[in-house]
């Protein structure tokens, strides 16, 4: 059981990463990766939403009528997303102002529904919670990596503090536009495939 939990937690972060391997949740990773701060909040929000909605759906998995299960899952996810949005609006207003559109879009993030359908409905609450959180973290890892590069090269800052701009760097406008997120994402997938191919041959 312990090993199962450990694998449930570690797999989505690297080997089965929802973004770079399953290529889910691409839309939002293009949109919220201009600045590191926004990406961190988005990563945290998705982690909370996937974790909690997987937990709730797993708790009620035996009672859910099979024919209406997608609707029930959607309602649970929507509930979590709205609660996260409301809490951010009350306690992190500045960040919510930047992210509110994308927070709403967590509902349509394939990772959330995918994990509920694919994992939580067939597993006990604890592994489901772990799986949800790990997938959120895996998503967040990619998001933060892309945002790190985009903020550094696009604005010359990190978390709003001048880094490259302090030494006279001219901002690269292309990095700020969405296509650059796709290019970076492609590079990440390339690097990961290369590393995994190497591991395969070692075995």
């Amino acid at each position, binding site marked *: 059981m312990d090993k199962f939990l450990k694998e449930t937690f570690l797999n989505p972060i690297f080997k089965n990463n929802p973004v770079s391997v399953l290529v889910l949740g691409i839309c939002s990773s293009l949109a919220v990766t*201009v600045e590191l701060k926004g990406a961190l909040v988005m990563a945290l929000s998705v982690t909370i939403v996937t974790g909690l909605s997987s937990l709730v759906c797993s708790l009620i998995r*035996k*009672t*859910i*009528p*099979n*024919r*209406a299960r997608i*609707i*029930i899952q959607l*309602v*649970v996810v*929507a*509930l979590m997303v*709205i*609660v996260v949005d*409301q*809490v951010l*609006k*009350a*306690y992190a*207003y*500045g960040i919510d*102002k930047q992210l509110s*559109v994308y927070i709403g879009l967590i509902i349509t993030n394939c990772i959330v529904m995918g994990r509920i359908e694919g994992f939580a409905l067939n597993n006990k609450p604890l592994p489901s919670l772990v799986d949800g959180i790990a997938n959120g973290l895996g998503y967040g890892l990619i998001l933060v990596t892309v945002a790190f590069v985009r903020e550094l090269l*696009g*604005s010359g800052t990190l978390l709003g503090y001048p880094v490259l701009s302090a030494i006279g760097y001219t901002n690269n*406008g292309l990095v*700020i*536009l969405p296509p650059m997120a796709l290019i970076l994402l492609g590079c990440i997938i390339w690097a990961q495939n290369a590393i995994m191919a190497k591991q395969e041959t070692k075995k």
Partner: protein
Amino acid sequence: MNTNSNTYTIIYTTVVCVLVAAILAIVSGSLASKQQANEKAETISQILTAAGFADKSEWEARGNDAIISFYKENICNAYVIDAAGTVKDSLDTASATIYNLSELKKQNYSVTDAASSQDLALPVYMFKDSTYVLPVYGAGLWGPVWGYVALENDLTTIKGAYFDHASETPGLGGKIKDDPSFRAQFSGKVVDFTDVKPFAIVKGGAGDKANGIDAISGATMTSKGLDAAINNWLAAYKPYLVK
């Protein structure tokens, strides 16, 4: 129990919906006052930034309470004018009453539509250092743009400005908010009602004019939207400004 029967499915979904609705009502109700306070402080900090008291990032660092108490200390008078430029109503300065975004949006219909201009109720914020702050509101490229223009005591010279937007492209249209050098262009310019446009945001060369500034390159539609917003609202304020 048969979880696939129609009765079970209907009862189950109904119960889930009612439960979820109840949870949302509780969450929304318990956080509403804090959310409204945030929104109000945000609007006031934008007004104060336009009036040149401190930079926007500094207000964010100071927090909601400091923003509101600063406003209360420095506001001289706040009132609402009608289409003829006469004072129609006053805004309570002791409780820092201001026009929020939805109110500006509502007024924008009267500003752009001459037929409904008799409903016009535009706010004027007058500070103790004789700075007048007027709001503007309009459509950018992807969503609304709005902001505040601060005028000196002569009601002609622009002291400063602050703009915000709902969803303009970061790094391009978003510069109306994020680029301090764009906003800095406004200071010292004038509003000239004898010109075709009292104030112009156009590409190339407008920077030399007394009543114009350079638009943002790469953000034509946002610049045009902001230009329209400023001119529409200034036209509505004209009877008040050129008395």
